[in-house]
């Protein structure tokens, strides 16, 4: 029966390419942009659609992607629509941050202000990144994206980007794209937030590319709380020059299926990455992250912290691959991956992997998955806390390694609210911090 079904229904790759060809000429951009889209389409058809047989895609919910019908973005929205955005639907502003809003993949916050510390939308940067097979879903966004949030930072800046989706995009696909370029010694605090209507859209395929020049510092907060009907394909590529520092603090609670494919290249001496992420899933949610870090210069460092909680029938996977090349003596890598299984049918798969090709490195990794620690629970019960409160506190404590790193109070409150929203007991207990 399934063979027949396959024969009747075109493969997902065929559907992608068919949709692309049908609208390619109408997509915005000059001849160069069109050529870039065509290259992406050619590369995707050459690589083919990912398969669970491939180690890097084993835990991704590819079936959900295969059920997708439409890869076309919705018809372009005008700024007029944005003005109709009810302020109540927008998250509270974070003090000190300038805000950009993209609705269904297109910038809608009206004017094009000159943001402090940035050079605004300055032409196409050189396409330094290259989506590897592990990040091939990044090609989708390169084929279809109609707009790009492009930030060129010199000096200091604090910017919040809201990638919002609306019900207009139901049954369509949305392609947010963010390109960051930080000049030597510049510093950016960036909040990247993905949120949207409960019913829409079917697919959000997002690309983020980041280039940090010498001694540039980027602190990148990522909050993802799309509705449960959305599939989120998230692709991130970053390259760090010498002494550059990149910190990611990520809280993912939304989308029915979310896949993050990230690759960070520590290309200059002393470059440092800190990746601190939380994923909390419940219901049928599937969250899967594949992060690859490449140390190719001496004295580079990685610190990776992942905390995942899977409730009900949720599945959470995190694969952390750190490759320390022969050219990177003196490097350090620390990985701490922890999973907490709450639901009887929930699943967590953590795969730490350190690949080291030079001596003189300091590396440590740990990965543990389990249920709530009975000894800790008993300690709290023996103090008279009721079971629900004790469990809530322990779940909260489990996430606190990452949450307490969010040093902006307003953002931390928001991140905590999102995490608590996924944890029943925690909601019942109320404010915990």
């Amino acid at each position, binding site marked *: 029966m399934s063979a027949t079904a396959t024969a009747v229904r075109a493969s997902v790759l065929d559907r992608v390419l068919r949709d692309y060809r049908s609208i390619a000429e109408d997509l915005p951009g000059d001849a160069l942009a069109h050529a870039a889209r065509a290259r992406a389409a050619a590369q995707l058809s050459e690589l083919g659609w990912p398969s669970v047989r491939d180690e890097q895609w084993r835990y991704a919910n590819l079936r959900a992607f295969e059920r997708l019908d439409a890869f076309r973005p919705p018809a372009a929205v005008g700024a007029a629509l944005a003005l109709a955005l009810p302020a109540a639907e927008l998250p509270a502003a974070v003090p000190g941050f300038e805000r950009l809003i993209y609705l269904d993949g297109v910038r809608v916050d009206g004017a094009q202000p000159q943001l402090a510390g940035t050079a605004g939308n300055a032409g196409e940067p050189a396409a330094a990144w290259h989506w590897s097979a592990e990040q091939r879903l990044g090609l989708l966004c390169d084929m279809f994206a109609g707009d790009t949030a492009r930030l060129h930072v010199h000096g200091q800046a604090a910017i919040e980007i809201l990638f919002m989706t609306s019900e207009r995009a139901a049954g369509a696909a949305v392609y947010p794209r963010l390109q960051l370029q930080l000049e030597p010694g510049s510093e950016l605090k960036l909040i990247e937030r993905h949120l949207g209507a409960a019913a829409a859209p079917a697919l959000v395929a997002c690309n983020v590319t980041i280039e940090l020049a010498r001694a540039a510092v980027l602190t990148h907060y990522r909050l993802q709380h799309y509705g449960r009907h959305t599939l989120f394909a998230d692709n991130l590529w970053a390259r760090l020059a010498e002494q550059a520092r990149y910190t990611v603090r990520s809280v993912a609670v939304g989308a029915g299926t979310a896949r993050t494919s990230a690759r960070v290249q520590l290309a200059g001496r002393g470059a440092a990455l800190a990746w601190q992420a939380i994923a909390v899933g419940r219901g049928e949610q599937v969250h899967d992250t594949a992060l690859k870090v490449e140390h190719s210069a001496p004295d580079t460092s990685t610190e990776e912290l992942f905390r995942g909680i899977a409730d009900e029938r949720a599945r959470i996977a995190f694969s952390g691959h750190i490759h320390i090349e022969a050219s990177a003596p003196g490097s350090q890598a620390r990985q701490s991956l922890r999973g907490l299984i709450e639901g009887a049918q929930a699943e967590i798969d953590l795969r730490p992997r350190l690949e080291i090709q030079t001596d003189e490195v300091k590396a440590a990794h740990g990965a543990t998955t389990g249920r709530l*620690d*009975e*000894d*800790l629970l*008993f*300690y*709290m*019960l*023996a*103090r*008279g*806390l*009721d*079971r629900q*409160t*004790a469990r809530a*506190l*322990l779940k*909260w*404590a*489990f*996430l*606190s*390694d990452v949450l*307490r790193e969010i040093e902006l109070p307003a953002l931390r409150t928001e991140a905590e609210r999102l995490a608590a929203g996924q944890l029943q007991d925690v909601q019942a207990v109320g404010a*915990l911090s």
Partner: protein
Amino acid sequence: MSEPSAPMLEIRDLHARVGGQPVLKGVSLSVRAGEVHAIMGPNGSGKSTLAYVLAGRPGYEVISGSASFEGRDLLALAPEERARAGLFLGFQYPVEIPGVNNAYLLKTALNAARREHGLAELDAFEFLALVRSKTQLMHIDESFLGRGVNEGFSGGEKKRNEILQMLVLEPKLALLDETDSGLDIDALKVVANGVNSLRCAERCIVLVTHYQRLLDHVVPDFVHVLARGRIVRSGDRTLALELERRGYDWLSEQAAA
């Protein structure tokens, strides 16, 4: 002549097992309000098991016998209900809970007990005022309150923190499991001071200990020796001194005979 008061804690012929192995083999003990009892015994005699069984730790299975607290069937209560009824277990190895704030845990525990007894909950200021006076008594730096529960505490700090919790919760029955182990002499005195400050006619204290040195500072009314799962001898504090002189072997041999 007035009738002696009913025991606050009454244990009768208690048998319990851990991991399928029988550990308690018929323990009986009566503790009245106002009394301090010491339970001593060699390693593996069942002292900690007795404490855990009374506190309701999962995996510590009662086979037969009974334990009542103020006339209530203690063994029928969940661990948290026992705590709110006024039983406090001071842990031999207090756990670290990073991410759960010491003060938050303690305030939540205190207010749970107050609700149980129909008292108004303390707000943050009232709680802080209460806990502050106790931290001074226990020589605990106030900054510890803001840290994770026992997070990064030394062994002695953890034990002092247990006693601090006890002082704030003011239990009716304090069950202290080897609270003296791992303490230097100064810390031992601080802990003993804390315990003594709770001694009163409405409360009873059961000290589980391997060594008699704590009993120099917290003088018990009764001393019991637990060996091979039974209380093999009871006496006053001179029994503890005799144990220090002669060791446990002679009693263990008697128990085996």
